[in-house]
């Protein structure tokens, strides 16, 4: 899976609206929603909030974001057995995450990382990229 790199200009274009949607979904102040803010660790999001957030992004941007798509994309071309072992992300998996989640400060992607904790890494910028990919998919 090779995708055309997402540019900073593309991210800047969607960020204000994504940040507003995040603030609305999580009930937090807009100025707390920085590009690098982890939604779970910094903004106290729960898993159910991701559901709401994706729903609001779909409505706000007029795009479709299939269920499970973000985690599936994060794993990329790696088969599940190579991405994680016994629920813990492998070295190969971590390397893939550092590449795919390039917006996440590298020191947050470290072993041991439980596969179920991957969403803890997601930042506001992660969702900007989700929207951009969905917009590209819709345009294709």
């Amino acid at each position, binding site marked *: 899976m090779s995708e055309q790199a997402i540019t900073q200009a593309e991210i800047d274009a969607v960020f204000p609206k994504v940040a507003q949607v995040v603030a609305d*979904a999580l009930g937090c102040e807009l100025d707390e929603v920085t590009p690098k803010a982890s939604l779970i660790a910094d903004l106290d999001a*729960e898993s*159910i909030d991701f*559901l*709401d957030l994706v*729903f*609001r992004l779909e409505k706000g941007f007029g795009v479709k974001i299939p269920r499970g798509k973000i985690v599936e994309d994060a794993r990329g071309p790696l088969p599940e057995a190579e991405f994680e072992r016994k629920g813990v992300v492998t070295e190969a998996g971590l390397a893939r995450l550092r590449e795919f989640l390039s917006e996440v400060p590298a020191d947050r992607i470290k072993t041991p990382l439980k596969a179920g904790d991957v969403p803890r890494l997601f930042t506001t910028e992660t969702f900007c990229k989700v929207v951009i990919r969905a917009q590209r998919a819709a345009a294709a």
Partner: protein
Amino acid sequence: MGHDAAAPRSMAIDSGLAGKVALISGGSRGIGRSVVELFAADGVDVVFFYRDNAAAAQEVVHGVQTAGGKCQALQVDVTDAAAVAAAVDQVVESRGRIDVLVNNAGIVRDNLLGMLEDEDIRVVLDTNVGGVFNLTRAVSRHMISKRSGRIVNLSSVAAGKGGRGQSNYAASKGAIEAFTRAMAVELASRKITVNCVAPGVIETEMSQAVRDLADEQIKARILLRRYGQAQDVAHAVWFLASRFADYITGEVLHVDGGFKME
């Protein structure tokens, strides 16, 4: 204050339901119809799904509208997830929200297990369980965004008390009670309550065959020695949807004349 569902503006106590939007599945007949009529009488903007009896559905809509209530019927098969999602989106589009969901649609295909066809098992589980999953998934995402909502599921006395020839139906209703508790946990942080009403033997078309078959035997198991009326169940659903049930979630409210005690 009358006991009759069609006694619209006589309710002196404010249930908090006036102006709310409710979606009710299986609203053209039986218990569902009573819920539609009671909610509409309390000022709720009601949308209900029906499967195939358009004439009955139109009769309900006409009756409610003639009494000054708000009501719309949509033909939707609850086992069709895509159709359910589209219909729910349509309701939200036109009304802005859904405050109350009543998962009422259900069917029976009674027979001894050894006599049940695969289809009898599948269709009961698909409708009574699958339909509830489809509707709740489609509606709850809107409720999550609004951070409020009421979900009331129709179970049955059969979920707790064994009934000969009802293995498929009993299993489906047991699943609904378990589903209710799980959803109560999942949705509590978004201020959405999820409860069940478990009717006993109610005088509706659906229970006609059972009542014909074992009338005295059944009544002997009911403490109050009579069958329930659809309105008895509707009042329980109304209560759980009202502000009086603000602090109740994950519960099963039995409306069975004491059947479960015997």
